[in-house]
């Protein structure tokens, strides 16, 4: 049963949530926003554009410990998997969809137990986007501006109050724990449908082409000039990979304690745009140029993941565009790919 939460009751809601979970919510940082562990409800900014890093990074953290080893006894290996109860609060639909994609990728056998353990102990509370949060988005083009699943609770601002969709048993437990929330009535539901209906008037398409055809268009453009143009701009800095909510590539590193007796094996975020990503010990680099690497990033999301899971691996959050200081834009690349076909190249 769905409920409503009055604006002025939101602090009580968050405080109650904190009693059971580490609450990770959007907070402001140097004029931008980031998902961070909050100590007080007043820190939370429900109205944010986009966060510097996507919330999924709390389920797939950098430098995650995989195991502990003993230098004196090679057989002594201690597995590390962590799961502490956390709630990701006010996650935009694009990021909810990104977590859904990560779930599919990382649950596929052989599965990633470290991710799955964290995922199972994470509650996701979504927050509806009733209009574009910023420029440089493709979520509407990809229909990822709406999340249909992958959350326990989902907030929609319907004026004076939030409509809260209760989507799982965990969500129901949370609502019961908080208590004193009004059941959503007929007028609340009417209002929900009205604001959702108005949503499509506020979003505008960024890509002038049929997104269902994008994968095919890209394959046609595999050897096109566009990648070489991107090569001149690309810094191979990996920013696009790090801020991406569906990038999951990693490196594995061993760190030894100062006593030279014990150590930890970590996984560290890695990125396919980095120059050394495909370099082997003998020195061979299997993706030498930035052009090949930019193309790989685009193809990975739009062709390879799409083929595997039946939908694009890019949710269109636009972080890679916002944070590319060289102004490499997926929107521009996709439009060029469609233009190219229109111009009959």
């Amino acid at each position, binding site marked *: 049963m769905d409920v409503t939460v009055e604006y002025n009751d939101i602090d009580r809601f968050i405080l109650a949530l904190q009693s059971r979970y580490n609450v990770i919510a959007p907070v402001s940082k140097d004029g931008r926003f980031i998902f961070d562990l909050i100590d007080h409800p007043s820190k939370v900014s429900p109205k944010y554009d986009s966060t510097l890093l996507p919330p999924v990074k709390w389920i797939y953290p950098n430098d995650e410990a995989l195991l502990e*080893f003993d230098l004196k006894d090679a057989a002594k290996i201690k597995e590390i998997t962590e799961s502490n109860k956390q709630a990701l609060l006010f996650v935009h639909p694009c990021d909810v969809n990104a977590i859904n994609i990560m779930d599919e990728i990382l649950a596929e056998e052989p599965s*990633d137990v470290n991710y799955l353990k964290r995922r199972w102990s994470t509650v996701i509370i979504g927050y509806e986007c009733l209009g574009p949060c910023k420029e440089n988005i493709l979520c509407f083009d990809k229909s990822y501006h709406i999340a249909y699943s992958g959350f326990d609770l989902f907030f929609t601002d319907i004026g004076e109050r939030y409509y809260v969709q209760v989507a799982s048993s965990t969500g129901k437990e949370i609502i019961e724990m908080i208590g004193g929330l009004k059941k959503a009535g007929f007028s609340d539901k009417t209002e929900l449908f009205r604001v959702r209906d108005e949503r499509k008037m506020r979003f505008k398409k960024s890509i002038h082409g049929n997104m269902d055809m994008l994968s095919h268009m890209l394959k046609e453009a595999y050897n096109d000039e566009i990648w070489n143009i991107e090569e001149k701009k690309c810094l191979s800095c990996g920013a696009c990979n790090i801020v991406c909510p569906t990038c999951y590539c990693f490196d594995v590193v061993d760190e030894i304690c100062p006593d030279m007796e014990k150590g930890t094996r970590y996984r560290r975020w890695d990125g*396919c745009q980095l120059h050394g990503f495909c370099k082997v010990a003998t020195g061979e680099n*299997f993706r030498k140029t930035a052009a090949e690497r930019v193309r790989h990033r685009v193809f990975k999301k739009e062709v390879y993941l799409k083929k595997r899971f039946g939908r694009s691996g890019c949710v269109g959050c636009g972080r890679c565009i916002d944070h590319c200081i060289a102004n490499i834009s997926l929107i521009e690349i996709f439009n060029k790919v469609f233009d190219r076909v229109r111009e009959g190249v």
Partner: protein
Amino acid sequence: MSNFIPMPATLVGVRQVTDKEKLFTISLDNGKNIKHRPCQFVIVSISGVGEAPISISSPPTDSGKVIELCVRSVGNLTGAMHRLSVNDKIGIRGPFGNGFPIEKIEGRDILIVAGGLGLAPLRSLIKYVNNERKRYRRFILLIGAKRPADILFKEEVTKWDEDPGIETHITVDAAEPPWNKNVGVITGLFKYIDIDPLKTVAAIVGPPVMYRFVIRELLAKGIFEGNIFLDLERRMRCGLGKCGHCQINGIYLCQNGPVLSYLEAKKLQEAL
């Protein structure tokens, strides 16, 4: 359990193969057999140093519970392996990858082309085919190396060379006087072999530059693209199809490879 946890294993044998490569014989401490297929690989772990993918050089039909890894010291992990000796411990994950489709090719003529270190993974297939000789028809081996001293498993190669049941041809890029076999690139050996293209299945492993030239020779002989198999190399971290390093276009080599038919590989622009 997490797929990142290596199984404790013991080095039961360490032997110098050439001046650069050593052969490690490994058994799992839990007493289990690593059930593998030819051309699969394991990920070797040394605590504090890290992990690296190494192809298995021994055939699955060899009795006992050991695998053999032929390793050249090129990086930190392989360098550390070279400093280990018998009874030392390492960690093993795997076996990973698809391995060679040994069942599908029964009853065929087998042609193996091994360039340099490529003999390390192919030895698992060669020994397997040799053990199961009656299941296959002709057995042709083409082996190439830089210098005679670089030829891996020299005693075994000599044995194969002397075996009337195996048509073996060996070449080196450059040779000193006692060498009485071929000198030149591996593609130069194709003129000595006469094959039935409809019945032949080829397996090629060698340095990246070798593939294109060998494939061209095989296609010229009329072998079907789907009957040419390659065992490719990429950077690998996890073996689980996740870390991204071994991706070749849409496939993860650690899961969908490392053995690909040329028919598959030619559709992947990044493969060759």
